[in-house]
């Protein structure tokens, strides 16, 4: 049974003098508990897909079904994580974590204890009364993860959540998120520009084209890699094979920003 279905979804951005077609006929299915990544050049509409699924933007045509029902009708909670943590600096860590339940008028002792439990699970203790300023980038993104998970979302949308972090913190967080999502059997979509991250975390990878944004190719991640932690996946022989395939596909789909990605590839293979 399909958990999330996108059927011929298109989206246009309108300006005074012109319009841009950001997405063109995007179709894919997502099974419950599945983790997919969307890779593609900047401006290909990756983030727009997430905004549409999150209900922040309305697509101009096509159908989005969540558990077989149109997105607008479903009241199911959706978790959205952005590039930066966007913790509210005037709220304490625990208040930040409980903002979702507060908005949904679902704030309770139970949620409070759950928030504390989740904070402990991501390795943050005794910081509930602190303010976000006093935390490091990695810690803040972990708080943002707790804030996202506390509403018990049916589906998690991750919009390059690790891109603003240093490499070490990023690897650690990838492991943590991957472990947490598997243990809670969460369905997730990760948008990223990092091929390694996509391979090591997901079950399936969609590579996108720009102008207008569409899905160029889908890669299945080998079963052997799926249940490994991201850190170990990166050292598996099949990782490199898939990396090269995805790399070639990305090269084919875009020729303009090729040079800027060359450096990134070297970093990855060295590791």
């Amino acid at each position, binding site marked *: 049974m399909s958990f999330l279905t996108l059927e011929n979804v298109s989206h246009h951005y309108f300006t005074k003098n012109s319009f841009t077609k950001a997405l063109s006929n995007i179709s894919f299915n997502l099974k419950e508990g599945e983790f997919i990544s969307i890779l593609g050049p900047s401006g290909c509409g990756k983030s727009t897909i997430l*905004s549409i699924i*999150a*209900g*922040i933007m309305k697509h101009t045509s096509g159908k989005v079904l969540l558990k077989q029902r149109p997105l607008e009708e479903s*009241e199911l*909670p*959706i*978790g*959205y994580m*952005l590039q*930066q943590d*966007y913790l*509210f*600096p*005037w709220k304490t860590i625990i208040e930040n974590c409980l*903002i*979702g339940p*507060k*908005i*949904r008028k679902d704030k309770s002792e139970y949620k409070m204890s759950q928030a504390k439990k989740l904070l402990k699970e991501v390795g943050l203790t005794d910081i509930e009364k602190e*303010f976000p300023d006093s935390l490091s980038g990695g810690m803040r993104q972990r708080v943002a993860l707790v804030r996202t998970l506390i*509403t018990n979302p049916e589906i998690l*949308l991750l919009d390059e959540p690790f891109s603003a972090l240093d490499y070490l913190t990023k690897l650690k967080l990838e492991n943590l998120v991957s472990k947490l999502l598997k243990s809670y059997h969460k369905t997730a979509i990760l948008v990223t520009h990092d091929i390694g991250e996509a391979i090591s975390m997901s079950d399936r990878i969609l590579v996108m084209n720009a102008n207008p944004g569409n899905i160029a190719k889908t890669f299945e991640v080998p079963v052997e890699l799926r249940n490994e932690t991201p850190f170990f996946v990166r050292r598996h022989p099949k990782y490199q094979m898939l990396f090269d395939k995805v790399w070639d596909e990305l090269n084919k789909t875009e020729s303009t920003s090729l040079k800027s990605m060359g450096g990134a590839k070297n970093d990855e293979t060295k590791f």
Partner: protein
Amino acid sequence: MKQNSDNHLFQQYKNKQKREKKIVITWQLIIFIGFFSVWELASSLYWIDPLIFSSPSKIIGLMMDKFADGSMLIHLQVTLFETILGFIIGTIAGIIIATSLWASIRFSRIMDPYLVIMNAMPKVALGPIIIVALGPGYFSIIIMGAIVSVIITTLVVYSAFREVDPNYEKVLKSFGATRWQCFKEAVFPATLPAMISTLKVNVGLSWVGIIVGEFLVAKEGLGYLIIYGFQVFDFSLVMSSLLLIAIFAAIMYKIVEKIESWLIKHTHE
């Protein structure tokens, strides 16, 4: 040994800071005393016309008399009351208008040219109309005090609302927040510092509105005393009113500054 030399350096640094502070205060005192003694001297030696420029001793004497018979206190109270009320009304009304502009993009588009005109308009020029419309009295003067600060508050606060990072709203919307919830949880608290800093501007502006209002219509108040002193050619009275305005405007400013640091501390803790 190392510890000692570190402490010694720190002590030196502290002494230097203290010395600097002393120099600043000394100069401030020199200017203060110098200004008033030159004024006193010039006046008593007829270098300047004492009838027009009065002298510190005459002003102090007059103030003592007026405070002793209680008449000055009444004028001072009236003006302070009007200024504080005008200040509060102007600030709150400005924030409310800014909120309604934020709430409806269409409303803000419609209002845009009117806001530009009202902002460019010297508000005190509206004085006669306000007095005719609302009647000569405290009410008109308080409205004058408020109207001077309301438009600028609206514009500053509204632009602060719009500068809030939209990603905060995105986070809240992903939880299904309404526009009002976005305002309450993200936009309003994020702009609190900007609102507080408009308070400081508004203190000064409210004084302008109130004094002009009193020039036009009042039977009491420091602005009235200035005009009255001017008409009967009692410049000691004018000067002492000015002195009181300077002192109390500074005190109000300092109080707002204290409120500001208190608010910033307590909204962040």
